[in-house]
């Protein structure tokens, strides 16, 4: 299925992202009911959680590409891993910002160190932010590609830890919406959530493909410059 997604033309993917985002906003503000407990502030959930899940997906995709680089030496896998991790860091930063805003309105604080979910996500974000320090401190070449791939693979271990931390450690501060019994919300809320997540995944996919195309073009121009020099 992922291989098929790769063949979707970029303009189609971008258009899908725009349509899905518009639909998601309409569903969030005009279809999904107000939460009985949190009221309007619960609307942040519809972007905060999908952004966080998209960040996980980007880091996972980056790690998968890193694995392909190490295993099959797939050409371009290193660059694809880099672009995916870059998107992951962007969505990770957005997760922390939107989460912080939600925490302020719900708990009265911007941040708490007592929530395992928050701390593990911050560790995951900082770990992948440091990926760029590693990448830009080593000369381009096979050694850098291998080092970055190993680093990206180590980081992926943090994803299930971050995801499961609230379930394992009885985190009473951070709410748990998805339990073993399914999503703890009404059908209309779940529909708005799913469309919002699809919109963010399509946006991340578009951004990933645009960034990748730019990087590839940059590489080819550099090669051309060397040939003409």
């Amino acid at each position, binding site marked *: 299925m992922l291989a098929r997604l790769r063949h979707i033309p970029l303009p189609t993917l971008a258009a899908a992202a725009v349509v899905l985002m518009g639909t998601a906003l309409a569903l969030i503000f005009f279809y999904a009911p107000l939460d009985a407990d949190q009221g309007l502030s619960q609307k942040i959930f519809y972007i905060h959680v999908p952004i966080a899940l998209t960040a996980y997906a980007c880091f996972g995709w980056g790690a998968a590409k890193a694995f392909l680089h190490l295993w099959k030496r797939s050409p371009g896998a290193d660059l694809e891993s880099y672009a995916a991790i870059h998107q992951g860091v*962007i969505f990770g930063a957005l997760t922390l910002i939107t989460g912080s805003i*939600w925490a302020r*309105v719900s708990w009265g604080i911007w941040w708490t160190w007592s929530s395992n979910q928050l701390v593990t996500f911050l560790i995951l974000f900082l770990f992948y932010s440091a990926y760029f320090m590693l990448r830009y401190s080593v000369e381009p070449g096979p050694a850098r590609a291998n080092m970055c791939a190993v680093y990206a693979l180590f980081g992926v271990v943090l994803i299930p830890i971050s995801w499961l931390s609230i379930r394992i450690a009885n985190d009473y501060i951070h709410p748990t919406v998805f339990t073993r019994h399914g999503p703890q919300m009404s059908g209309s809320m779940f529909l708005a959530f799913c469309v919002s997540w699809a919109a963010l995944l399509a946006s991340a996919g578009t951004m990933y493909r645009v960034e990748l195309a*730019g990087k590839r073009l940059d590489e080819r121009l550099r090669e051309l410059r060397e040939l003409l020099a």
Partner: protein
Amino acid sequence: MSASEKYVAAAYLVLFVAVLIWVAIIASKLARLERDAGELTELARRRLEREPEPEPERDEVGV
């Protein structure tokens, strides 16, 4: 505007601003790539002008 409304607006605005910043960064990168491509095209054109194209080989036709 209530406090909740302000925070919800801020959260959605963050996403919107992030997308705008990303578009601005990509636009600047694209402008640089366009400039680089222009320089390389100019370089290739000058090189072609300096080195005339080799004469195509002709088969001698005996009389």
